[in-house]
């Protein structure tokens, strides 16, 4: 494992070395990470704009207009209410879903509120332009990441759990739940839950999202009819696309929370410059300056 790291000694020389610098993220990984973050944000917000053009989801080949799986509507009341119906159960979501106030101060009939969509006003064609441009950026960036990751060995190292990690799976879960973040050598690699999460995001959620996006295209349906079989129809593909987008939001929320909790500055420096500090476990004091890698 040591092969992956360059280390440099802590700048505060003279002191007992508590911290060790490690070059954690190569340039390609850093660049593709941030490009990906921007793409996901734009895809999400422009996607919500597209969703708002017909804020209802169905299962199967076609829209069963009188029995949607989920729908957002504005009521006729004065003032209007926003209603969200999920599997036949209605919820009052005024101000958030179904009916919300836009930049003009007027309550409007819209699925997701203006501040979550791109563009913020109702503009399906604008949303589609953003969505498709960033879908291409996202896919090309993803391919660059995967190719680099495979060739450099970074991908395997980063996301495939090693044997010892699998053996200590239970213990890891416990550490995770109690928010105890690994220190010392163990902090050099991702822990097993982190690896599995990234594995699922990279090789399940994101590919499914791309395929579901393509399955909604009538031209792609002609070229690759199996896309429809895969998702059980175009309307289910749209629903899957929406659900996976929500799961990606969940992932990003947890991801960002953990970045904050486990040392925001260090993590950010790591993903911006590549350099990351490993806090040495205190107990087994290692003589200062002794090379470790």
């Amino acid at each position, binding site marked *: 494992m040591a092969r992956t790291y360059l280390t440099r000694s802590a700048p505060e020389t003279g002191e007992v070395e508590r911290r060790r610098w490690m070059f954690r993220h190569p340039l390609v990984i850093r660049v593709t990470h941030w490009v990906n973050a921007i793409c996901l944000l734009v895809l999400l917000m422009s996607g919500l704009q597209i969703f708002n053009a017909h804020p209802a989801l169905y299962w199967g*080949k076609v829209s069963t207009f009188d029995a949607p799986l989920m729908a957002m509507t504005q009521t006729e009341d004065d003032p209007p209410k926003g209603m969200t119906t999920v599997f036949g159960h209605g919820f009052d979501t005024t101000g958030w879903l179904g009916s919300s106030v836009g930049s003009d101060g007027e309550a409007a*009939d819209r699925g997701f509120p203006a501040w979550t969509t*791109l*563009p913020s006003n109702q*503009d399906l064609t604008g949303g589609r332009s953003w969505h498709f*441009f960033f*879908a291409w950026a996202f896919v090309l960036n993803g391919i660059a990441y995967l190719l680099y990751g495979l060739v450099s060995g970074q991908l395997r190292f980063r996301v495939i759990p090693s044997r010892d990690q699998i053996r200590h799976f239970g213990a890891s879960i416990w550490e995770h739940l109690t928010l105890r973040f690994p220190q010392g050598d163990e902090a050099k690699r991702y822990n097993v839950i982190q690896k599995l999460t990234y594995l699922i995001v990279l090789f399940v959620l994101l590919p499914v999202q791309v395929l579901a996006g393509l399955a909604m295209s009538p*031209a792609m349906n002609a070229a690759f009819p199996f896309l429809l079989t895969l998702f059980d129809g175009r309307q289910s593909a749209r629903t899957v696309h929406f659900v996976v987008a929500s799961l990606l939001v969940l992932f990003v929320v947890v991801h960002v929370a953990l970045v904050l909790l486990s040392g925001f500055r260090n993590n950010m420096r790591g993903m911006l410059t590549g350099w990351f500090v490993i806090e040495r476990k205190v107990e087994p004091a290692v003589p200062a300056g002794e090379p470790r890698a």
Partner: protein
Amino acid sequence: MSRSPNRRALLVGASATAAAAMLGGCDRLGNAEWFRRTLKTGEDANMFVQRLLLGEATLAPEYAEADISPWFKPNGTEDPPDRDYKALAKAKFAKYHLVVDGLVEAPFKLSLGELRKLPARTQITRHDCVEGWSAIGKWTGVPLTDLLSRAKLKPEARYVVFHCADTMDQGNSLEGGGDGEGTDEVPAGNANPSMTKQSGSGESRKDSGGQQASEDTAASGGSPVRYYESIDLVDAFHPQTILAYDMNGQALPISNGAPLRLRVERNLGYKQAKYVMRIEVVESFANLGDGKGGYWEDQGYAWYAGI
């Protein structure tokens, strides 16, 4: 962590401000012409790649009778306000003629009765509105290929334009009503009330369009904007591209485009022009409407509608 509450509040405040600035920034970017054009390269890439992937005769999926939607949601214009159209409809389209002209050797006209006597194709296909919903219907009609071969395209022919009976707006930006006919089918459309609000600039036109365009439009000598659409020869000669006069085994209802509508499968709903009056073969659609190749295209939608 050593962060003080103040610092945290500052951070949160700063992030919120940054987020708001970013949103505003994106909207402003989205309105800049150069940026809009840049974003559109994504849609150009869609067409380029999808055309590579699709064979000329790759068929859109066809469905079984049992899959037909009980209600085929009409969208866009559901009852053209135009006086001429109303007169035709009143007489059950007995006086209707489809005109095929433009860059052809042998322009012609056919009545509905004559069209019905030509060899027909029936297909059960899925209609996907750009808004996101889908419906399945059974269409019977004349393959466009047959009409075009009868008219014999001139070598310069590149696009086939469908001029429709329904007035969308009382616009004044267009050159003559004569040019842009249009159909409607507003995939983006009017069906869903929210749609009407959609395309920023287009919205006022749309609102005023459909319904009020009405009878006097034609009479007033103004320049009404009628629905129109265009496809290129790849789609025009596709085996599933038909001019349908029947839906689900019955004469096409007015709300779905009677007496004749285009089915150009492998494309979204706004391409499927309804109330088709005239088929014009052209070299370029630059001087029709606002020059983008169709009513919704003029409102910003992509000319290529494969996704």
